[in-house]
């Protein structure tokens, strides 16, 4: 079956720092301009750099740094009908110990994209970034921008101080549901700022270890969201796990269901198997798609959960571990390809069938 369209659930545009600074009030502007932009990263060594070195125009400008370049050199090239823009340079600030600076930066970056990028191309959709460690400020940001055209999601770092099912975060989910927005988490800040150690075992020694282990925080958040009853309390909430791949999910849910059968008493609001709750509320994006030696093994994993309903294509452009649409699509059985490549995302983000303009 031919693929009839492509919706990309994870693209990373980079805002111009000068434009961000213009939108920051003092005292944050002078601080930002001085180079003190947040808690920094662990800076594990990736010899390839995090950004693809070839994602530049003929003039040497970064493609992700301009709305026009991104439209022409990525959306046009791969015939992307819609793309979800998950902003760069914001997830780290979400782990800042300074909530007001974090919230101000998130607002400034969100405004750059909502006011300067979304109008450039009708294929763009945007995830508003929030710093979740002050949930009231995060909820305020969702209410400030949640009704703006083109805003389709709330984005948070998966690096975290405590798991996201906990009650302190619920104001974020209440605000998201009010505006009909899914909440997405994205890896990359594990170990940054006030987050816990990047793995449950502590601090690894290399990018290879750190990056491989990132899915661990997804597992912890997912278990927490389900067992704390977030999806019982917010039955309309949808949660998107962006950039974790897919194959880890079925065995984790087998464990969770098994434990629930014995320990239901400790989470009495769970009125059905945890896996059922997950399949009603949680979505995964494809990248970095797993590449077993035998491709049929990947297809077997897809049979172990309703992948046709909850998996969405993502490229992660322009990052070093991205997947092209064709490379991702061919891993899925033909009968599922349109679901993964655009139909599931179209329904989740309520994207009209034909792109405007």
């Amino acid at each position, binding site marked *: 079956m031919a693929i009839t369209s492509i919706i990309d659930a994870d693209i990373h545009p980079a805002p111009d720092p000068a434009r961000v600074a213009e939108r920051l009030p003092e005292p944050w502007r002078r601080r930002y301009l001085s180079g003190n932009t947040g808690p920094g990263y662990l800076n594990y060594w990736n*010899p390839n750099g995090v950004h*693809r*070195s*070839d994602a530049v125009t003929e003039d040497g400008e970064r493609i992700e740094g301009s709305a026009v370049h991104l439209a022409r050199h990525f959306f046009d090239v791969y015939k992307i009908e819609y793309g979800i823009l998950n902003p760069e340079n914001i997830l780290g600030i979400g782990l800042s110990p300074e909530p007001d600076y974090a919230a101000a930066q998130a607002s400034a970056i969100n405004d750059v994209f909502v006011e300067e990028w979304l109008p450039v191309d009708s294929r763009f959709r945007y995830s508003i970034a929030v710093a979740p460690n002050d949930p009231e400020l995060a909820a305020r940001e969702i209410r400030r921008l949640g009704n703006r055209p083109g805003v389709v999601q709330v984005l948070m770092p998966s690096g975290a101080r405590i798991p996201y099912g906990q009650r302190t975060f619920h104001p974020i989910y209440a605000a998201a549901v009010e505006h009909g927005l899914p909440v997405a988490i994205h890896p990359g800040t594990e170990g940054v700022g006030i987050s816990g150690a990047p793995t449950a075992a502590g601090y690894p020694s290399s990018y290879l270890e750190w990056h491989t282990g990132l899915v661990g925080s997804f597992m912890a958040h997912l278990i927490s969201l389900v067992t704390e009853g977030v999806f019982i309390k917010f039955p309309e909430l949808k949660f998107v796990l962006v950039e974790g791949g897919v194959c880890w999910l079925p065995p984790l849910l087998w464990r969770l269901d098994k434990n629930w059968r014995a320990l239901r008493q400790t989470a009495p609001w769970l009125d059905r198997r945890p896996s059922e709750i997950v399949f009603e509320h949680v979505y995964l994006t494809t990248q970095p798609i797993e590449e077993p030696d035998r491709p049929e093994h990947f297809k077997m994993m897809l049979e172990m959960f309703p992948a046709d309903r909850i998996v969405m294509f993502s490229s992660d452009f322009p990052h*070093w*571990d991205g997947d*092209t649409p064709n*490379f991702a699509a061919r891993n899925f059985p033909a009968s599922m390809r349109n679901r993964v490549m655009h139909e599931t995302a179209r329904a989740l983000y309520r994207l009209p069938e034909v792109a405007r303009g």
Partner: protein
Amino acid sequence: MGRPAGGKRRYVVARTGEIPSGVRRIVELEGRLIGVFNVHGRYVAVLNVCPHELAPVCLGRLGGTTLPSAAGQWVWGREGEILACPWHGWEFDLLTGACLTDRRRLRMYEVTVEDGQIIVMV
């Protein structure tokens, strides 16, 4: 003009002085982009398509790498002989086309030098 014996055509892509050691040039031959590299005086030609996700591999980083070593030891070597794909960083041995971490290989073309001209056989 028919193909010579062996089915390959000879293309002069540059004079030797134009691609000094450590330098590459991308040329188009028979509709294919091919990277011509000078690796310490030896010329190699590589199809500009990564065997993994079809990236333009010849645009990648050219350099050395850490050599196989005992755990905890760092030994740098092979400077100028390793090409890393600009997308996922897969490392390839430019002298053989082999990937350091996978069975998939670069597509290599035969190169000869005659009278100061670099000739790629396609």
